[in-house]
């Protein structure tokens, strides 16, 4: 088992009351899964994604990642896990605007203190893999939205993470580009056996999942496993 959440509770205090953003959520993810998390706005899907590796602290519950309990470890330890084992893809790409494509992709390697030449080699390979070998020296502002998201994907996999956490990765893209990105994520998942956990409100995107979680009001109301090779 790659990832397991059990009785995850996340409460917010608001105007004297308590809101359960995640209400005793439990789930399991196996290595190589492509998990899609769907649900209406405010259902808690992004909160779930961000709370797993400590970007939002839980009120209670346990999370086990790669055989290690991570809900009770400190910020420094969580940061180290994110640095080595997790890649993030966000709706807004979050590329650094003054860095070139290759420099953006090299950042996770820089945080891991990978030597410079090795950084260039690995970033070049990954950019070639995502079809942007000829855009390495371009600034993000010089790329299309689809290309920018591919740079973000390259950045999320360059350090060979165990899991990719994607929060609405196609939210800013038109339908054809969305399919292109989703196909690419599926390719990464299948070719590299990298686990992907993707939050989406798109039914089309949700179809890419091999394990589908549907949330409403902070609770998982539907969980489904499908043939991951389908």
């Amino acid at each position, binding site marked *: 088992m790659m990832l397991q959440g059990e009785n995850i509770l996340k409460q917010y205090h608001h105007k004297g009351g308590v809101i359960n953003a995640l209400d005793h959520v439990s789930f399991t993810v196996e290595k190589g899964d492509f998990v899609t998390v769907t649900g209406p706005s405010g259902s808690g899907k992004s909160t779930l994604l961000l709370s797993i590796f400590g*970007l939002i602290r839980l009120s209670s519950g346990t999370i086990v990642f790669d055989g290690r309990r991570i809900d009770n470890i400190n910020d420094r330890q969580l940061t180290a896990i994110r640095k080595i084992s997790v890649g*993030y893809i966000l709706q807004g790409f979050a590329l650094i605007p*003054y*860095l070139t494509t290759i420099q953006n992709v*090299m*950042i996770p390697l*820089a945080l891991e203190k990978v030597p410079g030449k090795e950084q260039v080699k690995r970033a070049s390979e990954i950019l070639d893999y995502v079809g942007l070998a000829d855009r390495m020296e371009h600034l993000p502002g010089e790329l299309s939205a689809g290309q920018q998201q591919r740079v973000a994907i390259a950045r999320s996999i360059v350090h060979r993470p165990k899991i990719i956490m994607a929060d609405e990765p196609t939210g800013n893209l038109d339908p054809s580009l969305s399919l292109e990105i989703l196909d690419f994520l599926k390719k990464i998942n299948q070719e590299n056996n990298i686990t992907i956990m993707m939050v989406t409100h798109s039914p089309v995107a949700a179809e890419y999942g091999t394990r589908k979680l549907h949330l409403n009001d902070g609770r998982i109301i539907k969980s489904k496993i499908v043939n991951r090779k389908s």
Partner: protein
Amino acid sequence: MTISKLVFIELWKRKSQLITGLLAITLGIAVIVAIQSVSVVSEQNVARNLDNLGANILVLPQGASIDDYYTSDIDAPTLPMDYVERILNSTIAGVDNMSPKLTRRVKVGDQSVVLTGILPKSEIASKPLWQTSGLTGAQLTTACAPNKTANISHGLEDEKLKRKAIDTLYSDDCLAGSQVANRLKLRVNGRINIMGKEFKVVKILPETGTVDDDRVFANLKDVQKLLKIENQVSAIEIMGCCNAISEGLLSQLRNILPDTRVTTIGQIVSTQIETNHLMKKVTLVMLIIIFFVGGISIGNYIWANVNERKREIGMLRMMGADRSAIYKMFLLKALILGVAGGILGYLSGTLAGVVLGPYLAGIIVKPVFIYLLWSVLLSVAIALAGSLFPTYLASRFDPHTNLQED
């Protein structure tokens, strides 16, 4: 790619912001350097002028009064010449110039004149005079005692012959005050007979309005022999460092010269001390103002930069950058700004001092190279102090909130 390289790239790619950030700190440092550079020369001038007021410490025989010193009575008490050596051989710091004198009222024809024996500087054994070194040693020295070249017109070249040691005064030569020269109708290279000894008048001194106008100055040893008071002097005039005086130079002198009366010429000392204190206060006030204004400006710049880069910080934190990496990002930037601001501030401040000094203050200002080090250190301190709080806040940013802003 490293965090350091990221900082350099960000600085380079956003040059206009870099210039804005640099401007505040550069101007602040430039103002300090310019003021300091002008102040140093001004202090040197003030010190030289104060030095020209003459000695500020008098060592008199026990029981003698200041009146005795000025009236030069025939039976006024004296003190041993050895006391000069005693001061020279001591470890007392703060003694700049010394001038032992023997003064007696004598008759020249039917006229009464004051004969003063003075010891030329060349006859006083050399001693490491008052020096305070250190990074600003030269400046401190000139604030109280002019350096070797600052006041070279001692002695015969000195138009006014203030009360201090002169460089050379040969045996059988004398200098005549203006009044006495007028009364005795003396002229340069003329002769004057004092108590049976012929002296050649090598200089008629300009009128000073002081007792010096009524004096004839000759070599101390000649005067001692003539007056048959060998190895005795009426007083030792000392040019003491005003700071050293306020720090106990008088009591140190009293300890090694127990049977003497050591007194200060209060007005000179207080003027020197007040001038030095004023200079220091002005500089301190400027430093404090620049520190706060510069710190706030840099802090404001870094805070604006932090806000502009919230998404970037959030993404970096998400990707595994710990808080120390965020600190490094912004403090390294502040450090670079500090070093660059210090160097540019020093250059522009020095240039302003050199160019504007002669026009505004009527003085020639030269670059003070040690200020480069101080400028950089001060600038870095200001930049880091101003950046600490914004950087602390940046390191505490909640990554996902900042990433979800757009």
